[in-house]
């Protein structure tokens, strides 16, 4: 049976005010109260929650008093008897901490008790740093205590606590810890990362659910207020932190190590991949000493397969190649393989094309490779919606402009006659025409080997016959002189059926639409054949 608030208050008063050490035994009973909640159901739990919250605060008061009296530090004892008492108090204090962590780690649903426990525990950290120092005013940080808390935080698992959109954890205790403590205090960050790397080395976290782990990790580190960030505004939590935590390189090394460990887990969720890839440039790479270590993670995410993630992974790889000299030979092969039949019909198409434009902006890639991309995009336009075609045409134009040797795909002078051709030349041309066979291989995975440059862009030429007048006109740029330096791709990327239709239906009627002058007869039968009412 749970003690009532009054009983708790009375016991606390007796312990703190009287100074009678006989009353100390009541602490054991108070601490023992926590056992009552283990395995309790949600409704029953909330019945006793307020009592327990009060109990937690009371116990904190008691132990604060102990701290002040120095009764928790056996080395301060003046005689054996006292030492015995102090050791006992220390043991009780230890079990109190263990109870708090148990509440935190075993919680299955959102509750205020766990939050209270977290607050109290962290306040205890501060008290420990003051009173457990080897001598007064000495620098000390209770890293063992923190380590236990970290383990508890990661062990807690509230079901469905992963945000579906961003992959963050919605565990309130963890969020509280992150918002209120981790993101504000530099010493907590330093020792957190240090102890976390210890925990990882110990293998404590190995058995936990990977996606949950990463969700929590993301909630902790996905912000801009890191120890190592340039404009972070951070405070000290403990009054006298040790000298050791001034080493930023150590922090970075720990953070990097931890990051890599978390990223290396398999079974991550797609949304988590996406979030990670999106924050890669701003929030991950700056904290890494050697960003190229992210290569494995990026390759993994590329292999996950989902289109957006793959292209984002390639984007990350591209960044690494560009800025950190990463050697990644298969990059364009991988990019080429992402240009699939589905690409033109999915939502992330415009993002893909934007990035492809960026990747292919290098002038050091071979014309054959560019030709493969051009040809493949052109082939895909044969069954893609107008919006996709609108974005592909300027892309191809810009590519050809940048790599003029690809112009042969639009204009092959070998297959032209000129008025002064001799009969031999004409015969040769005829022979060449009859021998010609399109060498392009759509199924070849390597863009260097598709022989696209020997092919021609019939697909784009056919688009001049597109049913949408604007696309038909746009496709005509390939038969006009290439005078424009480049098209601004952004103007062409974000068209949809919606915006196309809106552009049409909001047009003013200047000239009345022309009418059909031929009689069509009956709707079904004469006009539309093969259909009846």
């Amino acid at each position: 049976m749970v003690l009532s608030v009054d009983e708790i208050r009375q016991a606390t008063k007796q312990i703190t005010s009287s100074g009678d050490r006989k009353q100390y035994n009541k602490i054991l009973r108070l601490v023992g109260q926590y056992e009552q909640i283990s395995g309790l159901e949600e409704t029953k739990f909330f019945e006793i929650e307020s009592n327990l919250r009060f109990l937690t605060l009371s116990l904190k008061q008691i132990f604060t008093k102990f701290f002040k009296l120095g009764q928790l530090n056996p080395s301060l004892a003046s005689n054996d008897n006292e030492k015995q008492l102090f050791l006992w108090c220390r043991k009780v204090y230890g079990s109190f901490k263990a109870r708090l962590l148990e509440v935190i780690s075993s919680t299955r649903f959102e509750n205020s008790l766990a939050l209270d426990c977290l607050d109290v525990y962290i306040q205890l950290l501060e008290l420990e740093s003051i009173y457990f120092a080897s001598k007064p005013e000495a620098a000390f940080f209770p890293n063992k205590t923190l380590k236990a808390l970290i383990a508890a935080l990661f062990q807690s698992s509230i079901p469905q606590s992963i945000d579906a959109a961003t992959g963050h954890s919605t565990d309130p205790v963890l969020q509280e810890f992150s918002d209120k403590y981790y993101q504000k205090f530099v010493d907590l960050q330093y020792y957190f990362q240090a102890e976390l790397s210890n925990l990882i080395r110990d293998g404590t976290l190995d058995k936990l659910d990977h996606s949950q782990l990463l969700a929590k990790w993301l909630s902790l580190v996905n912000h801009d207020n890191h120890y190592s960030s340039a404009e972070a505004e951070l405070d000290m939590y403990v009054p006298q932190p040790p000298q050791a935590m001034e080493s930023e390189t150590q922090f970075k090394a720990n953070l990097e190590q931890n990051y890599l460990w978390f990223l290396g887990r398999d079974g991550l969720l797609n949304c988590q991949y996406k979030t990670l890839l999106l924050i890669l440039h701003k929030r991950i790479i700056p904290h890494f000493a050697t960003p190229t270590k992210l290569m494995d993670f990026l390759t993994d995410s590329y292999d996950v397969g989902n289109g957006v993630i793959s292209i984002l992974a390639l984007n990350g790889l591209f960044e690494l190649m560009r800025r950190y000299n990463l050697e990644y030979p298969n990059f364009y092969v991988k990019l080429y393989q992402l240009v699939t039949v589905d690409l033109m019909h999915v939502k992330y198409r415009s993002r893909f094309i934007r990035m492809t434009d960026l990747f292919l902006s290098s002038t050091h890639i071979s014309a054959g490779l560019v030709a493969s991309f051009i040809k493949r995009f052109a082939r895909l336009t044969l069954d893609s919606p107008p919006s996709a075609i609108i974005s592909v045409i300027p892309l191809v134009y810009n590519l050809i402009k940048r790599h003029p040797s690809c112009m042969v795909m639009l204009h092959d002078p070998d297959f032209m006659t000129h008025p002064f051709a001799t009969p031999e030349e004409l015969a040769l041309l005829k022979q060449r025409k009859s021998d010609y066979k399109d060498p392009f291989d759509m199924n070849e995975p390597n863009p260097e080997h598709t022989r696209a440059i020997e092919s021609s862009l019939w697909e784009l030429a056919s688009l001049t016959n597109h049913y949408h007048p604007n696309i038909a006109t746009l496709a005509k740029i390939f038969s006009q002189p290439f005078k424009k330096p480049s098209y601004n791709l952004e103007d062409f990327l974000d068209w949809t059926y919606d915006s196309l239709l809106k552009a049409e239906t909001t047009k003013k009627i200047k000239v009345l639409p022309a009418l059909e002058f031929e009689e069509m007869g009956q709707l079904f039968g004469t006009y539309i054949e093969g259909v009846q009412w």
Partner: protein
Amino acid sequence: MAGSQLKNLRKALKDNGLTGQSNVKGSKKSKKQSREYDREERAKTVARIREQFNPFDVKVNRDKRSTHNGGEQRPVGKPGISKQIGEEQRQKAHELRKGGKNKLGGVFDRRFGEKDKTMTAEEKMLERFTRERQNHSGAGRSIFNLEDGDDDGDMYGEKLTHFGKSLALEDDFDRGDLGLHDEDDAAMLEKRAQRTSKRLMDEELLGDEEPQPERKKTKAEVMKEVIAKSKFYKQERQKAQEQLEDQIDNLDNDFDDILSQLHSVPEPARSAVFDKNHDADKEYDMKVKELILERRAAPADRTKTEEEIKSEQEQKRLALEQDRLNRMAGMLEEDRGVEDLGDEFWRGSDSEHDGMGVDDEGIADSDDDVSVSVSDDERESRSCKNKAAAQFRTCPSTHEELLAVVNGYKVGDHSKIVKDIIKACQPRLAEGNKQRLGKFTGVLLYHIMFLASNYGGNEAGGVGESINSLVSILRNLAQKYNEPLSLSCRDIIQDIHLRFKTQQLNGLSRGDLIFFATVGTIFSASDHYHLVITPCNIVIGEILEQTKPDTLQKLLFCIILCKIFLKYQRLSKRFSPELVFFLERAIMSLLPSSQGTDTYASSKSALEVGVLPVLDPASFASAKSHPISLNTLSICNRDITDDLKKSALSAVINLVDETISLVWKELSAFPEIISRFEGHLATFRDSYEHFNSPSQILQKIDKLKKNREHIPLALQNHRPVGIPSHTPKFEENFNPEKRSYDVDSARNEMNKMKAQLRKERKFTMKEIRKDTKFEARQQIDTKKRESAEYHAKMARIINTISTEEGAEKSKYEREKKLRNAKK
């Protein structure tokens, strides 16, 4: 010259004998004489010496080029002198101008009272008025009186002239038949006179009589003569008039006598005459009235022969076809008025009675009505519904209103009701009917869609008939109410798009299919850009692209949509990638088993292969395939039979065939497009041995492939453009003196001219500026002089006054003193 400037001057003066000892002994007398005599000479010499010693009066042009020929004469200018000369010339001209001021030239304003400051505005007006009156109507003149035109002038007493010649048409009867009447023509007159006199002389020579040389009359003489003549005539006329008046007076005086005589005579016979002819007269009068009122006869149009009518129609058709082709090519004739367009279609519809089974109502020629002719059998039914027709007086403006009207009638009667409504709401019958009918076109379109989606089952055929006739009515209305119809079409398109976006294919119904088909029959679908068809195409594309053909209903819906789309493209043959996409997916969903035919297809993870396979290969034994019925779009899944699937399959295959022959075979990417179908078609061929179409299509593809050459493009075959070169041209025989090396002499000449013009212009501007400056200076001088004169005058006056005053004062003083002394 050595020495200082002063020394040199002295020396020069001495050399010229201007200074030094003047009274040399022995030559006193002669010297004096010569001095008197040589004053001018002396002045000249002095001037020369002065000029020599003033280095600033002479300006020697600096030789920039050569130093070797320093001894040569260099051009010397005397700016001071030339300035002086210019000044003097100006002075002269100025004085000349000043002298002639207010004495020569200028325009004189002779209008009455313009500058007369003594008259008030009112007086001026009055004066002008009286003058005008006098001119126009004074002395009872008529403007039509030709005789009287001698002294007429305009209201200000002056005639309009040009180069001194009168602009008025003057009659010149008095002056010979040639009408020569001015001094300017005097020479001619003289010549003529000479000629006649010569002739006369020749004649007279025989008669031995000395001819008088004809003296030319002066203008004054001529005028006098004319005036005299006209006065004479006037007098004559007045006399005649007086005579006439006298006669009339006499008659008047005698009139009473005649009347009394007349009254005394009895006249019974006359009234009888009137009575007898009364009826005939009446008839006659009526006839006359009738004839007056009768329309004047106009020549009738010649009756045209059959061939002529035919050729005319052919021409009209050709013109329309040409217009259509232009629109298809995207050549928009913006300037062509809407009215013209309407007219063309008017005639177009008139000329096409080709009896296609639809009762083809001709559109009335009149601009104001749309008549819906009523065939004989309808007339009977209409007569019984006359009462009902009365209720159609109000034109339904929303679809609900129309539904309320047609409520209770059979579907087959709807077209008749609609016709009645249109008849009752002819624009000529009431104001605002035009707008109402315009709105009604949209309502009618909605009604067609409503009928199509809400009726079905066994009465489908009747609904079809009804819809067909409604569509033909709509077609006729469209020609008159094009704009409101297009607007409502756009609304419907947006509505369809929204429904598809929110509920996918479930949001669409048969009505939407009917809408697309109807639009295709009404509007010209082949245009490059069309306000209604283009959005339709976009929406169709969207539906085809975003619908997964995984159920038979969806499949059939999209098949019909494809058919409509192909109909749109029957002339323009445009390419739709969405159609390719849909057809491929449709075929894949109908594949007999889920076997990926090639690696390309297997990469399409989003496509589900073989969800709707036709199970029984034997069902193709009966070769006939059924047309798709609209009813099947809404059947439930358990009613799906293999027959239906079979007809869907054959429809899809036929669509591929149709698209190949209509669109794809024209495209340069034909092999690329067709490559994705070949594999599937082969699968069908292998799976269903009785199913002929796939193998036929494959054969066709092979043939097409063989006949066309698939060679690399040569799109950039533009005329090469020269690279502009900017290296300087080397000129042989370069000569700095030569201004231009232009080969074209005409251009050279022109440039020369231009340069000259520029130079002259610059010079003239300079001169003008100098002139104005001079004028200004002169003005200031005159002003100064005037004011000096004035001040001098005033000073003099004051002086005299003060002297007089002083004299008077001293006089007074003296007097006073004297008087005082007297006392």
